[in-house]
């Protein structure tokens, strides 16, 4: 099952390597990973999506806690958190398909960020399932490039 772990760390060099190293060392596969500073530039947030069972996720959380530069760890699941991912997708428009693709983009509220004679570059934000559906619909036209940020998540307000 997919779990989201949101980790607050000291923003120091080598910290990301320590965290990703811990995952591989203990035999866990990272599905996605997103890193950025928080409102405090001395602190970064690392959002990690990992597939593991409950006991493994507990062990990995405890091991993460042991890293000296880790300040706080939060488990975020779909019920208590808002999850988002951003993608950029370049689609082939050589077969006079541009208008159809634009229609799909409108439905999904994706933005057009670049147009050429033969391609469209679309930007979309959403949950995993929305992005998956979008990707499936665009596939028949020919996806030239597909870039995603990795998931970020934030707990809902109380």
């Amino acid at each position, binding site marked *: 099952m997919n779990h989201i772990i949101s980790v607050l*760390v*000291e923003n120091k*060099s*080598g910290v990301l*390597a*320590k965290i990703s*190293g811990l995952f591989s*060392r203990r035999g866990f596969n990272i599905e996605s990973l997103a890193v950025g500073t928080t409102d405090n530039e001395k602190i970064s947030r690392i959002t990690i999506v990992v597939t593991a069972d409950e*006991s493994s996720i*507990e*062990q990995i959380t*405890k*091991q993460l*806690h*042991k*890293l*000296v*530069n*880790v*300040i*706080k760890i939060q488990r975020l699941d779909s019920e208590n958190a808002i999850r988002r991912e951003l993608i950029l997708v370049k689609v082939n428009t050589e077969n006079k398909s541009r208008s159809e693709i634009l229609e799909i983009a409108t439905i999904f509220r994706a933005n057009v960020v670049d147009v050429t004679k033969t391609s469209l570059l679309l930007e979309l934000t959403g949950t995993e399932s929305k992005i998956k559906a979008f990707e499936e619909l665009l596939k028949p036209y020919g996806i030239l490039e597909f870039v995603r940020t990795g998931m970020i998540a934030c707990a809902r307000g109380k």
Partner: protein
Amino acid sequence: MGKISGSQMLLKCLREEGVEYIFGYPGGKVIPIYDAIYDEKKIKHILVRHEQCAAHAADGYARVTGKTGVCMATSGPGGTNLITGIANAYMDSIPIVAITGQVSTSEIGSDSFQEADITGITSPITKHNYLIKHVRELPNAIKEAFYIASTGRPGPVLIDVPIDIQNALIDENVKGEINLPGYKPTIKGNLKQIREAAFKIYDSKKPVIFSGGGVISSNASTELTEFARYSKIPVTTSLLGKGSFPENDELSLMMAGMHGTKYANLAFVNADLIIGIGVRFDDRVTGKLSEFAKNAEIIHVDIDPAEIGKNVKVKIPIVGDAKAILVDLFKEYENIVKAKGEANRDEWLKTIKEWKIKYPVRYDKNSNLLKPGFIIETLYEITKGDAIICTEVGQNQMWAAQFYKTLYPRTFISSGGLGTMGFGLPASVGAQFGRPDKLVFDIAGDGSIQMNSHEFATAIVNKLPIKIILLNNGYLGMVKQWQELFYAERYSETCIRGCVDFIKLIEAYGGVGIRVKDKKDVEKAIKEAININNLVLIDFWIDPGENVFPMVPPGSPIDEMLEYKSGGEGHK
């Protein structure tokens, strides 16, 4: 304000941490530090003969004193040679601080001469590490390193210091500060859980305490012993727990596990409650995990929450320092006893007593051959347990654990988790520096001793009267034992007989060698060695057919043990 160099600041910070010794080896990228050491009055630098041994010596020093050991090496190969020693300290949770030189900050990442990414390499085997990028970071890093290494679950910390930082100038009055927002070890245990544990223990008919290295590192042996005696609960230990409870006490079950006593393993299997304190339920102890202690509930006390529930299912977890928790547990338990009277464990203790009589750890006393069990037993009788016993790894280590009753904490020094051959001799060096008042023995095998025998030089130069009890069987004995038992006696690459004369070897360094082939000479030789104020090696030609028993075969439940079988091959 006066300015001093980074190197001088480094030594100043180490002095402030109370460091007595640095075990180290110079090299190109630590020359500025060694230049400062040249003027150093307080801290003594001990020159080893290989960087690995610097880390092991710091480790041995830390184990006997409870203080943080310090080792030092140059960049590149100096640092990589430390790795086995650092990994060893990490696996056994021993506080050491390793300081390495590094190429200058401007050269980092350019594959320059003797450059190695030592913080990257040691990341999985250190509790934490630092690459110093500016001299002003140095005092804080050292202060934090000692704090991290020695608190919570102890462990090694590495500080990598580029050479330009060793030379850079810094205000001499700068003091290190600790700023670790994410590091807060839990000390006090949760009182509600401790109370629940006390009731569970009181109600238990067949409890066993399983004590580990955590009891020794938190200096909780006295508290553990008091609690066990008061509550009348038998105590078994892990290898690293040896010394946490006196093994001559009638409640002692000695060591449990693969080569533990059968009565300790039977106690686990038949117990209704196991109280694990400062242990990690390692596979060498549990045997086949699904069969381990099926009838028992488990109370697990550990300072590292990640250890709880990692290997075994725990009924009552208590996170915190063993000593603090044992103090609280004693009070809670005492309250129950005062209200309800003593718990009745007579039947359980009687059963255990019978097992102890029925299944002693033994060797063939009638054999004319020199049995390792006899040698270690004699050593125990002569020293009366009042000595520091270091071991190498393999059969020698297990015989030492089985036949030397450890009575005091910090007197049995052995590489448990990593199982590092070659650990014993350099650890003895560190141990003798830490405890100059004690007799230090290194119980060795002829395989292990050759891994770091160059440290004879360190012992001689520093006039360390270490005694090496060499159990020489001409084999890499533990592997040979497995080949004999599980690989159809196909002795692949395990015979090392006749390649070195250990008497000549020790004499070449200026030590004294005594050879013993007959069991009637054992006592005399050990006594003679003790009276010689020099490095002594006793080369005991033991029965090479003798194996370590009892033994839990790999993958078996721990009560299914192979019983003792005398070797009797003779020394060919």
